[in-house]
Each structure stands twice: as structure tokens, then as C-alpha cells.
């Protein structure tokens, strides 16, 4: 496998313009002859499906949720970045680009990130035209807030529901095309395999989650917009249904998987309350705009927060990173909180938590303003914990939130399997080793609205592939293998539930490959995961049958993939002998505990190629070349 990133030549700022001109076009009248399969209906999937349908392509869109509007993008709270410079505070495309590259700890592709910053401005225009009710000033113009890792205010938001509003915008655009008959929508349908014919992606195999029917769909290209793999940790802020199945099965069909070890731990989540916990809840990073993070100075301080005097509090982010303070990037803030807790200064049950305090903000702005800015978040906090954050500080703890790694794609967002495109969180492209807040929404929509619709045409126009044919033996083979796996899962009839395996895997990965990773912990995980996987295939109990809605069976297939994927995650983490962004290897740190990057040896993208069951995957290295940016030690001090 040769990984060609296909980055256009020329100066950074002109690459995308030049590439748009160089790409071949499909005649408008011919577009309707191409059928595109889109899997996933979140920001990336819905926007791509809608935009391609607008262009004239025939689109089929699949999602496992009961409606495309429920994709997990909906849960994003804080906002979306764009280099509009509406606040006149010195923002620019270049600054957004630089912040994102630096935020990603210099492990992202320069050209991709620059393009992302360029199209960010179009996204806001598009969303406003669709009726997304972004927050406004009294004068009627859009307002912004600041976010982690940036010193300008460039984040657009719609209360604490930005993801929801952006998704509804894309969903509405998608619905319009469904209504027009240009998109055929398949809700409650899960993709279980990619069909590759003569080296090109030509279709997928899906299971109807209501009837259990397994069927194949052919297309001229397949687009995966299936989100991240955060649920490999079992407990994460991801929705319950989020899974790695689509990208994992694509990986097994030849689509290299890049940088799986780059997982983002979000600093402001509600701490775990017990073993029953099914998911973790994020409190938007925007809270750090006005909230101050602190832990008691004294170890094991069990006093109520209001009884701890000011001089016995350690506002550790402000102390360690005075220039960014509470708005230090996510990886850094998370680690700082973990350190405080490791030192025994954590608060709440089990000592796994630090305070996020709004007392000063309420004093400065008044409770009403704080309520207006964050009301729904405070409400959410109260519902879960039963505590009133206007009166007592919130308790927060880091939790898995986003995964920067994903299917390897080139500049055209095409994976190493021609005709298979991967967009949004599912690909690895733009965030390097750490994503800045409010950049996920930006990337998902950039890919879906403004990048893929161009680049997919280039694929059609330049490849001149034969039309896909459902009668091809590859389709039959894929159908049979999916049916066999379903049957196998149902026939094991062991003793342990699917959830118990998922929970055990998650805990293992969190302990061994979470916020801090060591060679030893990773090796332990790599030894344990295959055992657990073997046990799963011997002893899992999947109830019910395949001819009805069967949530147990759905979960089993996803957990089976996580059990394989977890190994790749740990292997990647073991191989990357440096600390960068969300990947922190304890062996590689500065004397002051900060991450120690090794640009000389690890300035590359790790792309793993599947070699067959039981075989160690093959590592390909795509070197990261920086033409514009000077790689520096990331400092937010």
C-alpha cells in the first residue's frame, strides 16, 4: 500500500483554490448517473448527502438511529469556530489555521488544516441562510465567545445547543432532498461491511435493525461519516450507539486506519457516580470562559467548597498557564486535573474531581447573565447530580470525548481504498493529536458541505470506473460473511452479557491507555485484549433472534469490533514513543510534567494496514511536512 496524501503543490494559501481548478468536473447532466452511498447522517453525513443531492447525484443515506436528526453531532454544546473576525480582535484564516495546527500539537496535515480554516467562513454563511439561530447582539449581528486554545473570540454558538442547531440545519437540507426524491433515506439501518470490487469501493452491506434483513446496496462511491470510536472506553461522552464498526470493517477491507492513539479526554465532564454508569456527560468547554477551575491545596481536604478559604485553593490552570488560564487546551487541562487528583487533592466521591467555580462570574456579571449564557448546562448538571451550581461549584473530571484518529484519507478525503471517502470525526485528517474546542463541528460541516462534494466529482470524472453491479460475487461474499457473523453471535449462547464485555474492555483501555500511558500498561493491555476477545467469542450471551428488532445483537456486533479495535489503539500508542496532544506517554515528559514531543522521530501519521486475522497490522508512515509553520514546543504558559 502506498499512501499518497495528494497535497496540491503551490503556496499553502492557494493550494485549495488551485486544486479546485485542477480537479475534473462531472457534467451537470451526467451527475444523476452517479449513485453515492452515504453512511451516517450527522453533521458530515447529512451535509454531504444534502449537498451532493443538490448537485444532482443520486444519494442513498443510511443511519442506525431512528431519524437522521438524532446523530451524535446533536450533543455538541459549545460552538463552532470560524475565522470571520467579526469581533475585530485580530482573527484571520491564518490565525485559525495556526491555532488549530498548534492545538493539534503539530501532528496534523498543514494543507488540510489551512483549507479547513478557509472554508470555515462559508460554513457560518451557509448555516445562517438555513435558519440556524446563532446568538446575536442587540444590533442584530452575530456574537462570538472565546474557546480553549485561542486568544480571539471566534466561536459562534446557539445557546448551549450549537451542535443540535447545526445538525438540524443539515438535517433540514437533507430532508428537503429526501422530500424531492434525490436522497433515499434508510433510518434504523446499520452498515456492516464495505464491498470492494477490483480495488474500488462499490457498495455496502447493511442490516435493517427492525426486521433483521441483511441486504446489499451498490454505489459508484461510498462515503463513511460514521463518527468516532470513543466508546471503545465504554464510558465516554459519546452517545450509546456510537461505534467503530463502519470504519473498522472498512479497515478490514483495506482502508488504512490512522493515529488511533489520539483520543481526546475532555476536562469538564460530570464525574462518575458508580458502576451502573452507562455514559458520561460533558459540560461544555464554554463554561471555562467564566468558570474558574481549582482544587484544594491540602491533600484529602474534605471541607465543603465554601468553607475552603481563598488562599487554600489552588487555581491550578491559572497558576500553570497564566496566559491562557482556564482556557488552556483540553489535553493540557485534563492532565492538570488528573495530576491534582493523583496528588490526592481531588474532591467528591473517590477523590476523582476538581471544582469549576462560578462564584466570581456571578459576582461580576450577575446570576441572570450567567443563567443566560449557561442556563441549560447548569440545569443539566443539577438534574444529574442534584446540586445547584449557582450556589456551589460544579465538580468536574476528564472523560473521553472525541477521537482525532480515524480512517486515513488523502487531501481529497478518500481513504486508501479508491472510491471510499471518509469524512467528519470518522477520518483522521485535521486535528492532529488534539482537537481544539468548537472545531469538530467546523470540520464535519467543512467536509460535508464544501470539500467532499468537490473531490468526489474528481474521482468520478478521472477514474471512469465501471458501473457497480449487485450481481458481482464480491457482494454475495460480503452478504454471506455478515450473515455468518450474525448467526455466530446468536449461536454462542454463553454466560456473559455483551455489556459486561464492553465494560471490562472499556475499563482496561481507560486504565492502560487513557490519560497517561506507559510502555508497561500498554503491553498489559495488548496481552489482555486478545484473551478478552477470545472469551467473548466463546462465552457471550446474545439473546433473541435475527428476525426482529434486537438491540442485544446490535450491541454484540459493535462490541466485537471494539474488541479488535482496542488492540490497534494500544498498539499505536505503544509504537508512538513520544507524548503529543491527547497521547501522553509517561516515559516522555518534560521535567515540569508537560508533554515531550519527538519531532525528529515521530513527525508522521501512523497509518495501519490490515494484514488478516491474528496478524500484526502493517505500519505506514506518512511524513508530516511543514512548509509554513515552524514546529515549536506547544506552550500555553
Amino acid at each position, binding site marked *: 500500500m502506498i499512501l499518497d496524501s495528494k497535497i496540491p503543490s503551490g503556496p499553502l494559501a492557494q493550494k485549495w483554490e488551485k486544486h479546485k481548478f485542477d480537479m475534473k468536473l462531472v457534467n451537470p447532466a451526467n451527475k444523476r448517473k452517479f449513485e453515492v452511498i452515504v453512511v451516517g447522517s450527522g453533521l458530515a453525513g447529512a*451535509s454531504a448527502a*444534502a449537498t451532493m443531492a443538490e448537485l444532482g447525484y443520486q444519494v442513498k443515506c443510511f443511519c442506525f*438511529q*431512528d*431519524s437522521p*436528526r*438524532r446523530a*451524535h453531532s*446533536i450533543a455538541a454544546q459549545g460552538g463552532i469556530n470560524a475565522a*470571520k473576525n467579526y469581533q475585530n480582535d485580530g482573527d484571520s484564516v491564518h490565525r485559525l489555521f495556526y491555532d488549530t495546527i498548534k492545538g493539534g500539537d503539530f501532528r496534523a496535515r498543514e494543507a488540510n488544516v489551512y483549507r479547513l480554516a478557509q472554508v470555515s467562513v*462559508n460554513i457560518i*454563511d*451557509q448555516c*445562517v*441562510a*438555513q*435558519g440556524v*439561530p*446563532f*446568538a446575536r447582539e442587540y*444590533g*442584530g*449581528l*452575530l456574537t462570538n465567545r472565546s474557546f480553549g486554545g485561542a486568544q480571539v473570540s471566534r466561536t459562534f454558538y*446557539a*445557546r448551549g*445547543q450549537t451542535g443540535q*442547531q447545526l445538525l*438540524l440545519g443539515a*438535517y*433540514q*437540507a437533507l*430532508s*428537503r432532498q*429526501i*422530500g424531492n426524491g434525490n436522497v433515499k*433515506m434508510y*433510518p434504523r439501518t446499520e452498515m456492516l461491511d464495505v464491498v470492494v470490487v477490483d480495488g474500488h469501493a462499490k457498495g455496502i452491506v447493511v442490516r435493517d435493525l*427492525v426486521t433483521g434483513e441483511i441486504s446489499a446496496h451498490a454505489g459508484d462511491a461510498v462515503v463513511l461519516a460514521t463518527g468516532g470510536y470513543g466508546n471503545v472506553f465504554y464510558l465516554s461522552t459519546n*452517545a*450509546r450507539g456510537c461505534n467503530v464498526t463502519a470504519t473498522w470493517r472498512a479497515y478490514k477491507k483495506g482502508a488504512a486506519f490512522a493515529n488511533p492513539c489520539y483520543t481526546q479526554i475532555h476536562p469538564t465532564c460530570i464525574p462518575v*457516580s458508580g458502576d*451502573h454508569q*452507562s*455514559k458520561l*456527560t460533558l459540560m461544555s468547554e464554554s463554561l471555562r470562559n467564566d468558570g474558574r477551575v481549582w482544587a484544594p491545596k491540602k491533600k484529602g481536604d474534605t471541607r465543603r467548597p465554601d468553607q475552603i478559604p481563598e488562599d487554600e485553593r489552588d487555581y491550578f490552570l491559572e497558576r500553570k498557564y497564566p496566559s491562557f488560564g482556564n482556557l488552556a487546551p483540553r489535553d493540557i487541562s485534563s492532565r492538570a486535573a488528573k495530576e491534582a487528583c493523583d496528588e490526592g487533592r481531588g474532591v467528591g466521591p473517590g477523590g476523582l474531581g476538581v471544582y469549576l467555580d462560578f462564584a466570581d462570574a456571578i459576582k461580576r456579571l450577575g446570576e441572570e447573565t450567567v443563567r443566560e449564557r449557561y442556563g441549560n448546562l447548569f440545569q*443539566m448538571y443539577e*438534574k*444529574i447530580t*442534584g446540586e445547584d451550581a449557582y450556589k456551589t461549584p460544579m465538580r468536574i473530571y476528564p472523560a473521553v470525548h472525541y477521537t482525532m484518529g480515524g480512517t486515513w484519507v488523502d487531501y481529497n478525503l478518500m481513504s486508501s481504498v479508491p472510491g471510499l471517502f471518509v469524512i467528519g470525526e470518522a477520518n483522521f485528517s485535521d486535528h492532529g493529536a488534539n482537537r481544539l474546542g468548537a472545531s469538530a463541528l467546523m470540520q464535519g460541516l467543512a467536509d460535508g*458541505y*464544501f470539500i467532499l*462534494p468537490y473531490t468526489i466529482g474528481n474521482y468520478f470524472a478521472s477514474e471512469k470506473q465501471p458501473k457497480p453491479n449487485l450481481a458481482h460475487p464480491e457482494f454475495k461474499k460480503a452478504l454471506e460473511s455478515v450473515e455468518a457473523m450474525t448467526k455466530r453471535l446468536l449461536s454462542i449462547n454463553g454466560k456473559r*452479557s455483551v*455489556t459486561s464485555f464492553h465494560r471490562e474492555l472499556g475499563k482496561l483501555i481507560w486504565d492502560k491507555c487513557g490519560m497517561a500511558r506507559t510502555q508497561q500498561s500498554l503491553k498489559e493491555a495488548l496481552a489482555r485484549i486478545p484473551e478478552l476477545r477470545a472469551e467473548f467469542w466463546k462465552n457471550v450471551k446474545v*439473546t*433473541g433472534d435475527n428476525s*426482529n*428488532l434486537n*438491540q442485544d445483537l446490535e450491541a454484540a456486533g459493535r462490541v466485537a469490533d471494539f474488541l479488535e479495535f482496542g488492540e490497534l489503539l494500544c498498539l499505536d500508542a505503544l509504537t508512538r514513543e513520544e507524548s503529543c496532544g491527547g497521547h501522553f506517554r509517561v516515559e516522555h515528559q518534560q521535567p515540569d510534567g508537560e508533554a515531550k514531543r519527538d519531532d525528529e522521530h515521530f513527525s508522521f501519521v501512523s497509518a495501519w494496514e490490515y494484514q488478516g486475522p491474528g496478524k500484526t497490522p502493517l505500519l505506514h508512515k506518512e511524513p508530516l511536512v511543514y512548509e509554513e509553520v515552524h514546529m515549536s514546543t506547544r506552550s500555553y504558559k
Partner: protein
Amino acid sequence: MNLTLRVWRQKNAGDPGRMVEYPATGIIPDMSFLEMLDVVNEGLIAKGEEPIAFDSDCREGICGTCSLVINGIAHGGQRGTTCCQLHMRFFKDGDVITIEPWRAKGFPVLRDLVTDRGAFDRIVQSGGFISVNTGGTPDANALPVSKVDSDRAMDAAACIGCGACVAACKNASAMLFVAAKVSHLAQLPQGKVERTQRVTNMVKQMDVEGFGNCTVTGSCEAVCPKEISLDFIAQMNREYGRAILKGTK
């Protein structure tokens, strides 16, 4: 805590369905309602029985997937709360809890507590959008929108499409859902261009789906997890009246 659950079980759309009683033991007050069901399901799986099928995804009250009628109230009766955000601390040891799916002609039951809410998607597909293609849109600040209008649009846009309004309404009416979308878009200058056709099409589709009519009882507003106001129904009626007088396709 130990509880008794009375749960609607129905194998598939064709099955008549029935209530079945299950004990729920060892429940912790900090659990969410859905986590309590997870625990019961783990018990069922251990016994080789099929777990209770219920919809859930984000489990933080925003995706709108979860949809349980708990003790006769959609989402369980805590104000502004989805059932995934309902915690067991609101129940007492020994309680008997009845759990049913949304019941409406427009929301056929697929299995147990899982219903098909495709009707809502079809209503949006009929007109719940602004017809702009990607690209070619003016600068986001080219058209100022008063904060009052923008905030009100956001109030309506907060709808998560869960369907609790239909479930709670004695007439199984979808007016609050449709009104939220109609009002959200009609409130903004970008959405005004298509306002008459939009409301015409959406109401037509709503009627086709077999939802009931609004008799202004206010149940929908009371159970709505996003507390969407009944005033939006008045706004939709106004839009509809306008469309009738203007005449539309």
C-alpha cells in the same frame, strides 16, 4: 431501592402486546431511569430472557431518542426532562412503576417500548426547511436579525423531536412539534420567503400522518423536555390562516 416494574412487552408490530411485571432490585438513587432499565435488562439476559427493548442514545437529553411513558406521563413528569435525565432519586423504595411506549396512530410500536417516529421526519421533509443550496449564500452578517426574533426562533428550534407532545396529548396531536418548526423558521427573515408554502405543506402532511387536533389542553407544553411554549401553536395557526387567505399551492 427495590421496585416493581410493569412494562409493555410486544414482540413486533404485529404482536398485540401485554403488560409484564418485573422486579427491579438493588437500584441506586443516582442511577438514571434508563440505567435502572439497563440493570433490569442485564438480569433478564442472565436468565436467558430477551431484554426490554427501549430507544436511547445520547443519554443527556438532547438527541430526543428516549421515549417512555412512565406512570402515565411522557418522560416521567419532571419538568423539562427527558427520561434519560430522570434519576431514580425521584422514586421511592417499593414503588410500582408502569412503563409504556408512546401511543399514537402516527407512532406505531415496533417492539416493546420502541416506536416508529418516521412521521416527524416526513413532516419535516414536506417543508420544514429553508430552500437554500450549499454555497452562494450571503455573508452571515449581511442581514441583521433582531435579538428578540433570534431568541424566539431559538426557543422554538430547541425542539428535540422526541414526540412526547404527541404521547401526552389526549388527542395524540403533533401540533407542538410542527408549530415549533414552523415558528422557528417563520420567525427569521431567511425563513419568511417560504413561510406560506411551508406551513401549508407541513400541516397537510401532519394531517395525512393521522395525528389528532389541538384542543389547547396544554399537556404537550407541560411534558415537553425543552419546554416549548404553546404560544408557538398560536403562531403556526396565524401562519396557516395567513396562508389560507393568501392562497397557496
